[in-house]
């Protein structure tokens, strides 16, 4: 199936979905050729007769594949019996992360400040809005999880200044090389997909999703790249480097309020708070059995809706090739999104996919 190059807005505007669809993936790094693994089922609320024109995006619910179902599929592979357990957990973890990034699942948020850990979300929002601005110094886990985008959506009345330490980009660079090497070996036929290599599902988003999040943040909000202070050059521990960078930033610019380290790492959050660095921990929730694309925000009195297109786009960034297959009897429509494609031309900064449909 050869596809057309597409951006996310193009994909949304040109593809309309209703009824019931299966989401499946294939990835030659750890699956045999043409082996597709189910990730879940999407059911649209097809309540409107003229959906084709006026409603390009319909609400839907997503039922992720169960651990049992996934385990059964993966165990049937050559090295499945040995690695199915690990792969199952990894796949469901990545599904959870994707659902958080596209706004269908709320992340677990904890605010560690003034020697207390605040768990009540309304209280966290109240603290974050106190100064009408938030300076968010992010680490890789925060960018990868879409934490800053989430803050932008829930804190629309607050100015959010995102500070990205430059060494975060070094981490991305290191991962790009190993991922590209692996992909090249697969393409050249020097490596065959083995489930044992499913770790690529954890590593790929550290490049693809971080690049996507940074690209989007740059497009619509203030983002600053923070160079490493000279006295910290050579510090091998990245966690220490980021904590010291926050302290340095506050000291250098005379900032006493509104500066937060944003991380998805509990240990780093704990250590930073012990050193009086206010920290926002943003973690992944448990994966429910059924998730709606609608989210109500009582503070803003708003209904948020996540398009199915954004979910498929994000999943393709993680799983490399996503197939969306209609489950209605007699309807064999399929749409396939490919992350690795000629359109992208190898640039991780490119927000293009190859989208093919029949």
């Amino acid at each position: 199936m050869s596809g057309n190059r597409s951006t996310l807005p193009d994909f949304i505007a040109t593809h309309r979905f209703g009824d019931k669809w299966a989401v499946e993936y294939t990835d030659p790094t750890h699956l045999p050729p043409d082996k597709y693994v189910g990730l879940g089922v999407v059911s649209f609320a097809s309540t409107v007769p003229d959906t084709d024109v006026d409603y390009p995006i319909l609400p839907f619910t997503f039922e992720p594949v169960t651990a049992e179902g996934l385990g059964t599929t993966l165990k049937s592979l050559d090295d499945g019996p040995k690695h199915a357990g690990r792969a199952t957990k990894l796949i469901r973890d990545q599904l959870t992360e994707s659902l958080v990034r596209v706004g269908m699942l709320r992340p677990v948020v904890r605010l560690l400040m003034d020697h207390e850990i605040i768990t009540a979300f309304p209280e966290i929002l109240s603290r974050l809005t106190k100064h009408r601005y938030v300076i968010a110094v992010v680490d890789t886990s925060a960018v990868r999880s879409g934490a800053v985008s989430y803050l932008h959506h829930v804190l629309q009345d607050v100015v959010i200044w995102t500070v990205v330490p430059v060494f975060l980009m070094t981490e991305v660079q290191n991962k790009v090389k190993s991922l590209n090497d692996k992909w090249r070996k697969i393409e050249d036929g020097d490596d065959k997909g083995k489930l044992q290599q499913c770790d690529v599902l954890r590593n790929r988003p550290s490049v693809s999703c971080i690049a996507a999040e940074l690209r989007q943040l740059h497009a619509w909000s203030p983002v600053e790249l923070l160079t490493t202070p000279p006295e910290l050059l050579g510090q091998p521990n990245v966690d220490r480097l980021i904590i010291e960078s926050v302290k340095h930033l506050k000291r250098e610019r005379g900032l006493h309020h509104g500066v937060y380290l944003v991380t998805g790492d509990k240990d780093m959050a704990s250590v930073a708070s012990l050193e009086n660095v206010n920290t926002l921990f943003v973690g992944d929730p448990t994966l429910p059995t059924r998730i709606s694309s609608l989210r109500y925000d009582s503070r803003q009195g708003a209904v948020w809706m996540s398009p199915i297109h954004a979910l498929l786009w994000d999943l393709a960034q993680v799983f490399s090739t996503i197939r969306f297959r209609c489950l209605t009897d007699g309807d064999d429509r399929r749409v396939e999104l490919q992350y690795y494609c000629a359109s992208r031309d190898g640039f991780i900064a490119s927000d293009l996919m190859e989208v093919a449909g029949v």
Partner: protein
Amino acid sequence: MKFEILQAKDKATVAHFTVHELSLLSFPDWKSSSVVEMPLNDFAAKCDTINLVDDASTPLTVAVRVRFYLPAPVADRMLCLATDNGADREKASSPTLTWNALLVAVVEEIKHNHVPNDQYIVRISE
């Protein structure tokens, strides 16, 4: 529909908000009541199984203005392209939702904001 969240121990109100698109009248189990009060966990369980009005004269859905969970430029570009393809921009941002789906979204918000859930009561009224 007005939602009040009370502390179970002393019934003090900790939060309240109104969702204008929802009404007690839309739900058979509640349409004869002016106020319904129940523990948050029971409320969540009830919303999972609640039946909508099944009456041909009563619409089961409501058009609700939504915000798309997308980066602002992507959402804007997407709406422009949809308009070029013949969609009405206003309608594209106001899909028709079932009351049930909207109610479930509201319940999820209450559950998320009031933890542990068993220490709270929900009171709904018109």
